[in-house]
């Protein structure tokens, strides 16, 4: 969602810690925008293991990762956070009064403080393990389809067995010169309906399916000409001018590494009083931070969010006296939570 906005705090990452930070900041009257590369809240909990049970959230003897995210989303609703999903932060600059954050979707947000709650980093497509694939990235090898027209009249090789691989096999077939689907085994993770449609197209001779793994790319200057597929019955060379590998997502620290913040083994170094980074006004909470004794637990991230929020409050509203209050008894907090 492109546009210009202003808020007190921008939170990078909408996993459990980013979400809970909205709550703690909200109790202190700080408004938040959250940016996440995924298309929904939850981070790893939603992307990697939504069905898995979690047993160490205080007060919840057993919950699923998705249920925890649903509960957090409900818990922070009174504070009306603004979500920017499917966007990646591309720049973070200091302004006279705070920070300006921009995303790859053209969103620009001015804020007073920044909270990095990016977990293991941003989810990015995994590169297939083929030697020299980097040289073709963005020229002949793509990890998503932005414009179908860019694939018209090409010899397309799609690699993978999930929904993305099958969906694009079906969608690109009508406009491609040829489509070959390559998967290492005859079973697919994709929806059975898509697999049936693919099999039907294969029977009609409109697409090809090859069981195996792409082992070699042939071409020059980023222009792919063919690929070698190693299958159970030997090698097969296929004409290929566009390849779409769908090998799932991996987590990378990404642009965060370029913001001039001190790191410790690929994680962001913070103090344990404010969870502030080496850059004043930029905080880091949850799995992405490091300090002596750090444990990568969701509950630790919650604690970090609470302490961080009090420090952020002093930055956003300098000089304002902060009275510490409990949600159980404070009528002021009850009003904010909509339960007064």
């Amino acid at each position: 969602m492109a546009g210009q906005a202003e808020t007190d705090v921008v939170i990078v990452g909408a996993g459990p810690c980013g979400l809970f930070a909205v709550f703690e900041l909200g109790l202190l009257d700080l408004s938040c925008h959250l940016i996440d590369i995924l298309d929904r809240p939850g981070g790893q909990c939603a992307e990697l293991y939504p069905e898995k049970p979690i047993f160490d959230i205080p007060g919840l003897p057993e919950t699923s990762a998705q249920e925890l995210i649903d509960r957090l989303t409900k818990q922070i609703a009174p504070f009306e956070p603004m979500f920017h999903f499917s966007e990646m932060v591309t720049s973070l600059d200091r302004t006279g009064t705070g920070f300006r954050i921009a995303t790859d979707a053209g969103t620009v947000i001015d804020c007073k403080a920044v909270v990095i709650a990016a977990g293991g980093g941003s989810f990015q497509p995994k590169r297939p393990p083929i030697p020299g694939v980097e040289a073709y990235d963005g020229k002949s090898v793509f990890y998503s389809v932005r414009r179908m027209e860019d694939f018209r009249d090409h010899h397309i090789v799609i690699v993978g067995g999930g929904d993305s691989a099958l969906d694009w096999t079906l969608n690109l077939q009508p406009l491609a010169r040829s489509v070959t689907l390559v998967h290492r085994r005859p079973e697919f993770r994709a929806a059975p309906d898509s697999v049936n449609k693919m099999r039907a197209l294969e029977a009609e001779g409109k697409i090809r399916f090859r069981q195996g793994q792409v082992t070699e790319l042939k071409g020059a200057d980023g222009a792919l000409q063919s690929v070698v597929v190693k299958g159970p019955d030997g090698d097969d060379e296929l004409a290929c001018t566009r390849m779409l590998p769908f090998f799932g997502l991996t987590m990378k620290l990404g642009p965060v590494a370029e913001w001039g913040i001190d790191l410790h083994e690929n994680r962001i170094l913070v103090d344990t009083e404010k969870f502030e980074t080496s850059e004043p006004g930029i905080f880091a909470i949850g799995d992405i931070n490091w300090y002596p004794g750090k444990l990568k637990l969701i509950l630790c991230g919650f604690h970090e969010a609470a302490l961080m929020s009090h420090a952020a409050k002093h930055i956003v509203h300098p000089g304002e006296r902060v009275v510490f209050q409990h949600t159980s008894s404070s009528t002021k907090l009850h009003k904010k939570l909509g339960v007064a």
Partner: protein
Amino acid sequence: MARITFIGADGARYEVEAENGSTVMENAVRNGVPGIEAECGGACACATCHVYIAEDWRPAAGEPEPMEEDMLDFAYDVRPGSRLSCQIRVTDELDGLVVTVPERQA
């Protein structure tokens, strides 16, 4: 109890005593075997604890379940004998198990 030998991509050998019921991945991590990342912590959700089971040990270690096969699609350099070590539970039958760690995980 079972004795497990991990062979690193560089050929280094790591021998560990593994308790029954624990996973092969847990034993690798606990003993600092390099190359087993186990990013998701054993949830069969990331394919970064990928190992190759030595040929003689494949029948005892068993075949991957469909969910594990799905995750193996994302692993680096999948070969016959590829397994996710978080999905292999240690039993007495696995005493002597030998697994090799791939060159990299992702």
